[in-house]
């Protein structure tokens, strides 16, 4: 796939779309908005074609390892964002969302081997492989957009007197970036097992510093540029966040349920508390808590935002952390 012409065109398409959204971030002119949307739609169709191409080449759903699922995640992110933009506006999210999809593709090609590998026996069930992985990654796509909305909400809380919001954003970005950096270092043999704890702390500190340095000017810029002017009703962002998270929750639930039925088919047990299962359950619980706080407890604001951010960390750990740090039945995914 990495050698495919389509794949390289897709890269360029995402790059162009990201730039377009970046330069028109505060625009409300209808023509520009529609142009961006069209550009994203074309990119998304191209992305679909890339996945279809690999599906054809491999002769099976391309959803079995890190490379393939990351490509799929990027697709999910772009698709969910396009839906959110059409439904709620919120164009200000466009640049980070398309960039996230691009990063997902980039991570796939730069870090993981793109060779087509044969499937182990347990995965040879196209129906369950397709439904289980699709729903999980649509869910992850929705949670990714939700996470970006959380960051936006935190930046909005920043005013002239305190930059607390910026630091919180920096912190939450760090929590995502630091593990990826650590996995990379470990893959290149820089981090040995005995060094993990002190090096992990050092890496996290460096990532936090960089994220802090980057986030503060972004937040200040956003304030200067009157970020809020693009979001007419401040409640729209919060409503959109919760609708997106509900969508993610529904997809994650279906993903867990289909995984469970599949496990019953293949191994004779629908639940075995293996690390991947347990972490998807933890993720589900956190978003479940978020729903109960929001709709049962009737709370809004910082608490719900932080629960959503916590939920996203759990998503990332379920996806990456479990594959690389904990062992279990899903260990085949770590390649």
């Amino acid at each position, binding site marked *: 796939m990495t050698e495919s012409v389509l794949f390289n065109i897709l890269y360029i398409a995402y790059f162009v779309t990201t730039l377009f959204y970046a330069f028109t971030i505060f625009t409300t002119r209808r023509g520009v908005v529609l142009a961006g949307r069209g550009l994203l739609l074309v990119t998304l169709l191209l992305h679909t074609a890339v996945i279809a191409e690999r599906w054809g080449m491999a002769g099976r759903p391309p959803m079995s390892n890190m490379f393939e699922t990351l490509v799929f995640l990027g697709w999910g992110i772009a698709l969910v964002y396009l839906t959110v933009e059409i439904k709620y506006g919120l164009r200000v999210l466009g640049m980070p969302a398309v960039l996230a999809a691009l990063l997902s593709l980039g991570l796939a090609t730069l870090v993981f081997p793109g060779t087509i590998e044969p499937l182990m026996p347990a995965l040879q069930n196209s129906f*369950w492989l397709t439904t289980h992985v699709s729903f999980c990654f649509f869910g992850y796509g929705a949670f990714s957009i939700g996470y970006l909305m959380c960051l936006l909400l935190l930046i909005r809380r920043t005013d002239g007197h305190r930059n607390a919001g910026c630091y919180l954003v920096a912190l939450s970005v760090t929590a995502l970036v630091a593990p990826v950096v650590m996995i990379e270092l470990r893959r290149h043999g820089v981090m040995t097992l005995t060094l993990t704890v002190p090096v992990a702390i050092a890496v996290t500190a460096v990532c936090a510093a960089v994220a802090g340095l980057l986030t503060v000017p972004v937040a200040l810029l956003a304030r200067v540029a009157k970020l809020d002017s693009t979001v007419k009703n401040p409640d729209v962002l919060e409503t959109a966040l919760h609708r997106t998270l509900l969508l993610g929750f*529904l997809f994650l*639930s279906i993903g867990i*349920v289909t995984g469970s039925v599949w496990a019953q088919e293949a191994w004779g047990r629908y639940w075995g508390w293996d690390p991947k299962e*347990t*972490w998807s359950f933890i993720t589900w619980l956190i978003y479940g*808590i978020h729903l109960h706080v929001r709709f049962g407890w009737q709370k809004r604001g910082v608490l719900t935002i932080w629960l959503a951010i916590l939920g996203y960390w759990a998503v990332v750990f379920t996806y990456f952390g479990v594959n690389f740090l904990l062992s279990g039945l899903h260990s085949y995914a770590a390649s």
Partner: protein
Amino acid sequence: MSILRTIGSAKAAVLLLSATAVACLVGTLLPQAQANHFVYRAAWFLALLGALCINLICCTLGRYASWPNRVGSVITHLSILFVVAGAIVDGVWGVRGDVQLRIGESMAAFGTGAQQRTLPFSVHLTDFTVERYPPTAELTVVQTGAEKPEKPFEMTAGSERPVFGAGWAIRVDDIKDSLGESPKLVSAPAGSGKLGVRIKLGGGPHASHEEFLLEGEREEIATPDHLLRVVLRVMPDATTRDREFIALQPGAGNGFVEMAEPDGSKLRLEARPGQKVTTQAGAVVEVLRYAPHFVIDGGAVKNASERPVNPAVQVRVESKDGTKKDTWLFAHFPDFRRMHGQQAGPVATYVRPADIDFVHQLFLYAVHDGDIAYAVVSSGREDVPRGSAVSGARIAIAVEVGTVEIVGLLPQATLAHEVAETASGEGRPGALVQWLKNGKPVGQPAWLLAGGDPAMGPDAGLLAAVTGYGARVKAFRSTVQVVENGAVVKEHKIEVNRPLVYGGYSFYQSSYDREREKWTGLEVARSPGVPLVYAGFILFVAGLVVALYVQPLLKRGRTAPNEEKP
């Protein structure tokens, strides 16, 4: 009503959900077996899940008045009770076990860990195959100092390829799909090696095969079924050997009874009947009986087999004043006595190292410049057959184990790693390569295994390595027949995603014989809770869809005409 509200409040739900999430997180940090024991199957965790269910019931019941407006939410919440009910049904009535079958064998019972379960029918294995993907292997040649390695090339037997100019070439003499490195005993130059013994196990349940023992490297081997252990002890001289050898008595290897003396020292006696010792306080401790497989059958103590399943010794303590007290001590349950309140008298424990759980043990006592003295210590046997072994001697162990033949004695031996084709397709691909200079062989041909060490070229900093994968498994197929009342009622090819379902039981492909591909491992399960769990799954998703998308749609439909009115 208010109690219902408190127990079923959103705050309580949030608290319980958070506690569950933290508990699960802790569980994933523990090794799986420990996590199952201390978290997921522990009473406190189940109680936590129970509390969540109670919270859920109270919450739903407490707000029954609003049910019509919250159909989706109510369905979603109640669906969780279905899943939990299914899990409970499986926990109570579910059965799970595994069985290993060779082609031609039948099974009508399976082990569930603690006991045997009998099936109302039998399953006969007619065929078992492992289908594999073709292996991939490429040969890469690197020269230190060269800018980049030669492009990897596909190997074909007999092909020759020039590398990096200057007359160097590499020739592939042979290619094999599945190779393994196995240690082998070889003669070493005088003075540099250790004492080695080649033996051959035969006549038992395992196919006859050769093994070896090597002083300091591999001093014992055991059969995987724990029937036999062979131990090599190399003694400095004949006198020491004879002294140690005499000490081998029946019951050697049963472990020891240990008692703490008042001064803190420890009293030890071998755990075999007739052993006696007097304590500092003047009491006499005597071992009465030894039972490797202690069971209580009809109120009487019985020894169910000679396998050390539940090793126990009966000890009599006779105090100075003549009072006698008999106690059973258990190797696997050291706290048994304390649990049962028998704290009077000196506390004795039965210490049994885990590595001596074998039914038969063959001890080979060797000295460097002499023959081997052997002794067979069997659990449950009063005598210890002994003798002296030379090359070619055949030592009979027991009917169920067969014999051990001393194939050869090597006074000076060392380990060599031999590359050989594996009995299964589980090995790595490899090539036999020969370096050439101007068409003439340089050095000896050597086997290169995928993922193994590269082969140094004879000169010029050349390195050759094979990269690739072995033949990975594509599918396991166990062809089985279900036999009921003497007739074949069903035939099925079990694969990983295609279990056999018959008579309420399901048979899943779960493992296989990696070494020889001779047997298949099937997981047998009866999960009566599955329909409930699946019903819960469907209701959960349906409820969520109704709550998120159907109800808002209906509401909009209902409110829309109202909005038009004013």
